[in-house]
């Protein structure tokens, strides 16, 4: 908080939007290593005022390291960072912020115990003549910000319990109030639904039009092309190329990101469709979903599409017995399943790979071995004790088959990349030799290369005669992978398609309408 006039509080507090002066942030040849691991080999990018710049690359390409270097969390080992033509070195996040750079991290970083207004103004709250925090002024300014952003968030509520989307809006409000000239958004849309993404984009565009330089990181190509003016590709910690968004195609981009051709992103192989494995009849739960009926056959992948909040995960959880249902039945291979008993479901040969692998799928601090063997405890145990050797060999077998990339089986799962974590979750369940597998958003937040590996795996499993129910919000994934597609809307199945006659338009239509609503 030492330098310069643009840190002048009075100016900041006026709430005037971004300054007119075009700002360019330029990073050239920045390297950053952690011990022997080079996270960033050549960080190069140029952000221009009034443009939205996308940064794409697989997980582990060095995007987050680059963001953290811009933010001042890391200091570069070599290379230069220039702000408006002048070299800068940020010793900490406070300095980059004072220089007009705001970063919105993947996981919003709000203080749950503080009010929304205080979250925006913490550390620079308006003060009255006595030097005390002027809460009415702070509240007023926050309310004005939200009015300008067009979102109804109460500045006086505590941040705890806000939706991710609202949290992100607050982060943006913070950036605006800081008069950020450079706004970095690290995968802001990963947890947002369609409407929320639109709202975020509208805000980002208006910031751009006011002269901000924006860096946008996303794994979703449609978003990148819809929002961004230029695109920079990174691979293995190094800069590859920068393109104008309208002069490159998705295929070319993918090619640059992975450095190899991925001919088919979604390779579902033909598998022999066998008998009905799972059959769900008239499943209902008041207020959540109603009258859900479907079957999944051996070797078949059934895609469950729909918008976020349509009730897909809730149905899956009820089928697996985690949640209760009011009426209906779940039958596995002809035998009715006891309701509300995951234990019965597992014994009948069901496996469930949940959506939030960090919270539900993995014990992040345990090793790869322990996580993989978690579901095998009963099989492996002798006299109630688990032998470390049996655990290791069972786990190694599976991680080898799934090509989990880890330095050692004894490393904590939290050190793996998202894609490899997902493989560990899969390995954990596959080790139980299931007959029916539920995967919920199997490739969320996973880079393109690993994504196709996950797809290949799921496809292979189907080939081995496992029945698969795949919940996915990504249309190409559903259409490429599934033999049949069910679409849910507000708790009911609103469309059923065979692979042959499924079109994106038809699925989207079913996902966004059922009977009366059409807005």
């Amino acid at each position, binding site marked *: 908080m030492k330098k310069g006039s643009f840190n002048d509080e009075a100016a900041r507090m006026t709430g005037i939007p971004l300054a007119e002066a075009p700002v360019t942030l330029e990073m050239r040849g920045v390297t950053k290593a952690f011990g022997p691991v080079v996270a960033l080999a050549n960080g190069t990018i140029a952000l221009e005022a009034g443009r939205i710049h996308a940064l794409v690359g697989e997980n582990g390409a060095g995007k987050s390291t680059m963001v953290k270097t811009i*933010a001042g969390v890391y200091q570069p080992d070599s290379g230069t960072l220039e702000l408006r033509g002048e070299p800068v070195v940020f010793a900490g996040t406070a300095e980059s912020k004072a220089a007009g750079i705001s970063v919105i991290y993947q996981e919003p970083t709000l203080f749950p*115990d503080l009010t929304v207004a205080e979250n925006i103004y913490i550390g620079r709250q308006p003060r009255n003549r006595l030097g*005390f925090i002027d809460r009415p002024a702070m509240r007023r300014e926050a309310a004005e910000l*939200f009015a300008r952003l067009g979102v109804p968030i*109460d500045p006086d509520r505590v941040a705890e319990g806000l939706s991710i989307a609202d949290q992100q809006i607050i982060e943006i409000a913070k950036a605006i109030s800081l008069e950020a000239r450079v706004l970095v958004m690290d995968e802001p849309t990963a947890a947002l639904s369609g409407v929320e993404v639109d709202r975020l984009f509208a805000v980002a565009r208006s910031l751009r039009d006011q002269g901000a330089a924006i860096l946008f990181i996303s794994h979703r190509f449609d978003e990148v092309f819809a929002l961004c003016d230029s695109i920079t590709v990174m691979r293995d910690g190094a800069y590859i190329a920068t393109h104008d968004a309208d002069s490159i195609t998705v295929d070319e981009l993918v090619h640059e990101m992975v450095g190899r051709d991925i001919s088919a992103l979604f390779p579902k192989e033909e598998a022999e469709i066998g008998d009905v494995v799972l059959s769900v009849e008239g499943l209902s739960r008041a207020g959540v979903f109603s009258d859900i009926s479907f079957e999944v056959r051996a070797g078949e992948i059934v895609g469950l599409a729909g918008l976020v909040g349509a009730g897909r995960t809730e149905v899956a959880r009820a089928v697996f017995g985690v949640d209760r249902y009011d009426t209906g039945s779940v039958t596995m291979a002809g035998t009715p399943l006891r309701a509300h008993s995951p234990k019965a479901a597992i014994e009948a040969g069901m496996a469930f790979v949940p959506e939030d692998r960090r919270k539900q799928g993995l014990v992040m601090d345990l090793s790869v071995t322990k996580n993989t063997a978690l579901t095998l405890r009963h099989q492996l145990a002798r006299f109630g004790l688990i032998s470390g050797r049996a655990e290791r060999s069972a786990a190694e077998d599976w991680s080898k088959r799934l090509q989990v990339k880890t330095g050692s089986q004894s490393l904590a799962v939290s050190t793996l990349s998202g894609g490899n974590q997902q493989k560990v979750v899969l390995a954990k369940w596959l080790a139980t030799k299931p007959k029916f597998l539920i995967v919920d958003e199997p490739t969320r937040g996973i880079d393109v290369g690993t994504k196709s590996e996950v797809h290949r795996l799921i496809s292979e499993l189907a080939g081995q005669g496992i029945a698969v129910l795949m919940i996915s919000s990504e249309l190409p994934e559903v259409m490429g992978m599934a033999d049949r597609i069910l679409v849910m809307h507000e708790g009911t199945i609103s469309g059923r398609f065979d692979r042959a006659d499924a079109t994106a338009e038809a699925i989207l239509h079913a996902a966004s309408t059922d009977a009366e609503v059409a807005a």
Partner: protein
Amino acid sequence: MTRVAETATPSPVRPRASRPALRGLSRTFVSREFSVFAALAILLIVTTIANPRFLSPQGTKDLLLNSAIFVVMAVGEALVIITRNVDLSVGSILGLTAFSTGATYNAFPHMPVIGIFVIGVVLGAILGAVNGLIVTAAKVPALVITLGTLYIYRGINNAWAGSTQYFIGNDPPEFGNLSVASVLGLPLLALIALVITVVFALYLFGSRSGRDLYAIGSDPVAAQLFGIKVTRRVIGAFVASGALSGLAGVLYASRFNSVGADTGTGYELQIVAAVVVGGVAIFGGSGTVVGAAIGAVLLTTMTGALAALNVSKFWQQAIVGILIIAAILITKLISLRNAKKLRVSEAKDV
């Protein structure tokens, strides 16, 4: 998933009813402190009915004097706990400063009273700074570090004191008189505790660095990313806690007749208990020093009241334990209720 029937409001964006929410918030703010305060009031009323002499002028004075030292320490501890740390060395710091007060008077019998206070507070601040520096540098939970310094400071006290006891309660008389003096009808010690509570309450509520403490306790990682000076603030909280314990040590020497090797042993848990009972979340981020101060008064009163009610000394501790758990459950209940209220108000706004 629950859809509230929508009344057709043509909805230009409006901030969600800001005033009622504000009231709701201040209600939360008040209700934690209020529930402790209510417990204190009930305790006083019940005890006075059973034993009218409990709140006689002398009884009241004793109560205030006994509370004062705990209140001073609880305020400091609250600052530390709000940052998601804890200071277990406060009892040892009190012991060391109390003994050093005795030793100073022994060596320099004509030391002015103000000098004694400066020495105590500075010594306490240094010991607190040691805590803060180790905690922030080693990035190890404060629980472990201050458990260590609890023994280290106590060990120094033991080695220094041996079997020596200083009796300074009346010698020099102007120092001993501090603990019996009254200003405006209030015992001086109680007044000191009150002033300290008010000063730190204003600091936490109304200053930027005070709010930083809440932010740090609420989410330390986010605070770091946000550019809050986490290290400096945490060290500051430990220094304040140490300084206040040092002050408490001087007050202790004035109030009680003798100081020695084991002065203040076991205080740390009583102080942490007072802070938690006073509504400061043990994992930081919320609570106030006013609550902590009331918590300290409540626990002190409890001891006196149970004695006045002829409850066996053995049961007193069990009752304190029940109080701690009740305080935590109340806090939890309040936050659950608020979360529910927020959900409902949001559903209405959709």
